[in-house]
């Protein structure tokens, strides 16, 4: 049978769990400057900003280079390797180095 946690030592300071307090409802308050920037009508809603941020992040992710193909000098060297493999071609390996099974 699993043992229960030992009781706190006598005199130990008990942790008082603070009563949870509901955060005050955040009202959509705009400063005068923001109102001036967005115009007096139709300030962007939270949903619109979220959508905008998502679009920006998606675009940024697409632009991160995750390509694993070869280009430039590395591609030139790989092509030379392919030529070398063809020059040393064998029956079991007619084009180049066999890939791992």
């Amino acid at each position, binding site marked *: 049978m699993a043992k229960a946690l030992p009781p706190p030592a006598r005199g130990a300071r008990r942790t008082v769990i603070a009563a949870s307090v509901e955060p005050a409802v955040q009202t959509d308050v705009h400063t005068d400057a923001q109102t001036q920037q967005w115009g007096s009508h139709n300030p962007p809603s939270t949903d619109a900003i979220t959508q905008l941020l998502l679009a920006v992040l998606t675009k940024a992710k697409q632009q991160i280079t995750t390509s694993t193909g070869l280009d430039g000098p590395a591609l030139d*060297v790989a092509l030379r390797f392919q030529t070398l493999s063809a020059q040393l071609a064998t029956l*079991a390996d007619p084009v180049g*180095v066999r890939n791992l099974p």
Partner: protein
Amino acid sequence: MFRHFATLVSPDTLFRAHPAELAWLLEEAWRQRFDDPAKALGDPDRRSPLSALPPPSSEGAPLPTALADILTTVTATDPTEVPRPFRWDHLIYAYMIENTRLYEVFRRVVHEFVHGEKLGVPDADSQAWLRNTEELFFKDGAPFFATSLAGHIRSDLRANRRNPYQRMFGMELNHGMDDGKPQPYVRAESANAEFVPTFEEFLREVWVGMTYVGATASSNPTDPAKIVTLVSKLKNMLLSRRQDGNLAREEFSAVTAMSWFHLTLEYKNDGASSPIINSLRAQANGTEQRLFKVAERVGLPAHGLSKHYFDMADAISRILTQIESNDYDTTDKVRALFTPDTTLQATPEAAMRTIITHWTAITGRDVKARKVAPN
């Protein structure tokens, strides 16, 4: 070389040819080797300054049409036949193949067939194979040919290959003589003793590159500059042994011999087999399994890890050839060693993966493991 010839003509044509024709074929391949005068002697495109035996007549070498066709080619734009340039494998290919012990195993095969009928009576094709094998690889060879190395100065054919292995790679073969005693041979003072640790460090760094090549959400410890340095060290030590084209004949002779036995076992994987394999009733699926069966017939065990040696030999030969060509001299270029590319049929990355896997298996040293830094 013979495995390359077998892509141009049926292996059976090679096995049935006269040994003098095969010797001439090799001599012509030596004559038609890549020889770019702009490159330094010893470079993969200019291996040797030594000339081939002059052809016996203006007609060229005495070769039947089937074999003579190997020596010519046509370009995509011009149908006129021109001499085909030849390149042979790196010496490391011979080292890897010989480590399977196939030379010793086939020595026993020839020995048994020429001395009795313990293994049965060879059929006509097997007799041709046995004659070719004995003439080309268990005799001193005709004088003046590029592949004829044995003589009064260096009389043992096996020792003649161990010497360049030790000089180029600082490595010994993993087996001695048939009775278990070490094979005596002359060890050179100038040898690349640092080859193995440098090569393993190179493999380790390339593996790090492979592991992190697609990483976007972590730090990338790949160190292309270190790979360039290690490649440069390997290139310098290998080319130092090849100074002015040195060791080219020894390499040509070794890779030629090993490719003959390799082809014998490799041919074919589609159910049929080479004549001597049929005569020995050693049919099996896979090159190494056929070797094991032949070894069993003659009572001399082959190396248990032969598959790894066979599978790695081509890849390591090509990578070392490229290293000697100074192809990986910048950080941009070494990316090709660890970056996959699905558009190419053969890539350095696939070759490196093959080498790393099989090198780990045969040495027992895991090059994929991280190095532990001392405190």
